[in-house]
């Protein structure tokens, strides 16, 4: 097997193992209901993690996404409350804003030659600050179109609900797979993650690519915000605090190298589902406390970071001999 596939294989193996453990203890977890809920509950996370995967593949990081999701929810809620615009037009405006926001961060990262970490930290403050300025309260969304979105699901055999947002997440992942693995833009992303100097030598337009990468992440965060607002039927500026960390964790547990250049969008989906599965297990168990989720995720992070580090050493050592 290609060594590049090891982390992905590990991700899938861990997910299957976790699933088997869950099912042997709680056979009900095999049901389509649990599966449907897993997709629905993690839809917003899965979408934003797709954007994060592309950013991390390029060797960057985007700390602003949690705040952008919160901003999106608040923006939608306030627009629907105060204007007569249809949700679809509000969505369109929102996506333009978040994509532009991401592009602006990418432009700053490139033109100032400053670490993405600190630039997107400023973006994080800004997005949440603007969300606060729109409202400090939770604003409920009450619109016929939202009821429609909420009720849109396919009843699977076994009464599991395959919701619209769950399907949207799967479509987004598919879209992300195409973008990252099947386009010239995706190739440039991998090239940047492999090394900026070499990428430049091979003809990558570094500035343009960087702007596009963060614009893509912004677009995904906006989309995730829409999904989150459908999921919660409200907009709240304090929502999704720390989601950027959860997304980064999902990407790494999904087998993507945190320093960039190697990984799979599909792995991120598995990473998101693994984390969701751990949470579901703890809910089912009832006696276990929720903090175990964080500790297990931390351990998984450590394991994957060390695995990647080890792989890097193994491959370079073999070539050197």
């Amino acid at each position: 097997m290609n060594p590049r596939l090891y982390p992905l294989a590990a991700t899938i193996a861990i997910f299957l193992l976790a699933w088997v453990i869950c099912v042997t203890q709680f056979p009900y977890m095999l049901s389509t209901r649990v599966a449907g809920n897993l997709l629905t509950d993690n839809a917003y996370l899965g979408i934003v993690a797709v954007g994060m995967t592309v950013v991390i593949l390029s060797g960057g990081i985007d700390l602003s996404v949690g705040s952008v999701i919160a901003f999106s929810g608040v923006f939608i809620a306030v627009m629907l409350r105060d204007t007569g615009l249809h949700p679809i037009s509000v969505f369109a405006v929102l996506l333009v804003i978040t994509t532009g926001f991401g592009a602006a961060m990418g432009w700053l990262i490139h033109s100032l030659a400053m670490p993405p970490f600190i630039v997107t930290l400023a973006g994080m403050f800004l997005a949440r600050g603007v969300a606060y300025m729109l409202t400090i309260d939770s604003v409920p969304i009450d619109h016929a179109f939202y009821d429609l979105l909420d009720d849109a699901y396919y009843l699977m055999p076994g009464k599991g609900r395959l919701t619209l947002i769950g399907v949207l997440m799967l479509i987004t992942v598919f879209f992300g797979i195409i973008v990252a693995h099947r386009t010239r833009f995706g190739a440039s992303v991998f090239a940047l993650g492999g090394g900026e100097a070499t990428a430049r030598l091979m003809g990558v337009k570094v500035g343009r690519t960087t702007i596009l990468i963060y614009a893509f992440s912004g677009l995904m965060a906006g989309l995730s915000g829409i999904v989150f607002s459908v999921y919660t039927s409200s907009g709240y500026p304090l929502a999704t605090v720390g989601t950027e960390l959860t997304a980064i964790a999902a990407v790494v547990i999904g087998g993507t190298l945190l320093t960039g250049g190697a990984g799979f969008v599909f792995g991120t989906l598995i990473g998101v589902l693994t984390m969701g599965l751990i949470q579901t297990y703890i809910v089912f168990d009832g006696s276990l406390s929720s903090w175990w989720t964080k500790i297990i995720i931390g351990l998984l992070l450590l394991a994957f970071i060390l695995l990647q580090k080890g792989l890097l050493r193994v491959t370079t050592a073999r070539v050197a001999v």
Partner: protein
Amino acid sequence: MNALRRVTPQLLTLAALVALVTVFFPDFLRIEVVNGRLVGTTMDILKRGAPVGLLAVGMTLVIATRGIDLSVGTTMAITGAVAAWSITQGYGLGGALGLALLAGVAAGLWNGTLVAIFGIQPIVATLILMTSGRGIAQLVTEGRILTFSHEGMAFFGSGDVLGIPAPALLWVLTAAGVAFLMRGSALGMLIEAVGVNRAASALAGVNATVLLIAVYVASGLCAALAGIVATADIRGADANNAGLWLELDAILAVVIGGNSLMGGRFSIAASLLGALIIQTIDTGILLAGFPSEYNLVIKAGLVLIILVLQSPNLSHHWYALRRAAQSRRETAMASAKETGQ
């Protein structure tokens, strides 16, 4: 003289901020003595700024080595939980403080080992503890807010010495102590050398590995002190919220202090001024009657300004400006001398 010039931009910013807030809130600078305590908004800022100030001390050292420590907020939660737990278990004040500091050292050793020995990027290495640390803290508190009633412990949050709030005193003393240690010994220079060029430093015989681990331990210790203050303040350990996002404020304080994220030259005093600037904005916005929501936007603006100032792409531009200013100064001085003679 040099040290003063180094912190001039931060001092000017702080002065401007204070002046601005005073315009909106004339009583801002007033300090009264009530029941033998100094009471006033400035005292409040000094007290509330303690956690970020303490974290910024350790963070300054870590950033000087071209690293970053994302885990300080969760380390605060862990150490706070350990302190509260030891108090409720009856280990006494000394035991509680000792165990909390020990937890901070352990966190620092963990991070430092991953960075210096395993060679994992600091941002990645410290992310692990950042993600799982709150879980560990909740493990200690068993998910509850672990409250205690122990006056000795509470002293670190709400006590005072000669009228000065204990947290304020603690962070000023810690900062002064660390700054003195850095500049009184060769540690400061060695840390700067490792931050600028680890390979060359190692070649000159500097023990870069040990130094790197040491700065993360220092950061863990500072986080432990901050955790003790936070716990003592509310007389309980809140694993979920103690130190939440304070790592970002600490990094911001260091960056506002003009310390480069690329490592090298550092100034603890400047970082502390940065922490004070953040706290003054926080408090000032509240006092001036603005909604606190403006806070984050202003922080974002500050980061942006600093990014532009520090950008390597623009640095030759600033360098040219500086040189021009310098030569102007020199000619001015020369002409002043001439007229003097």
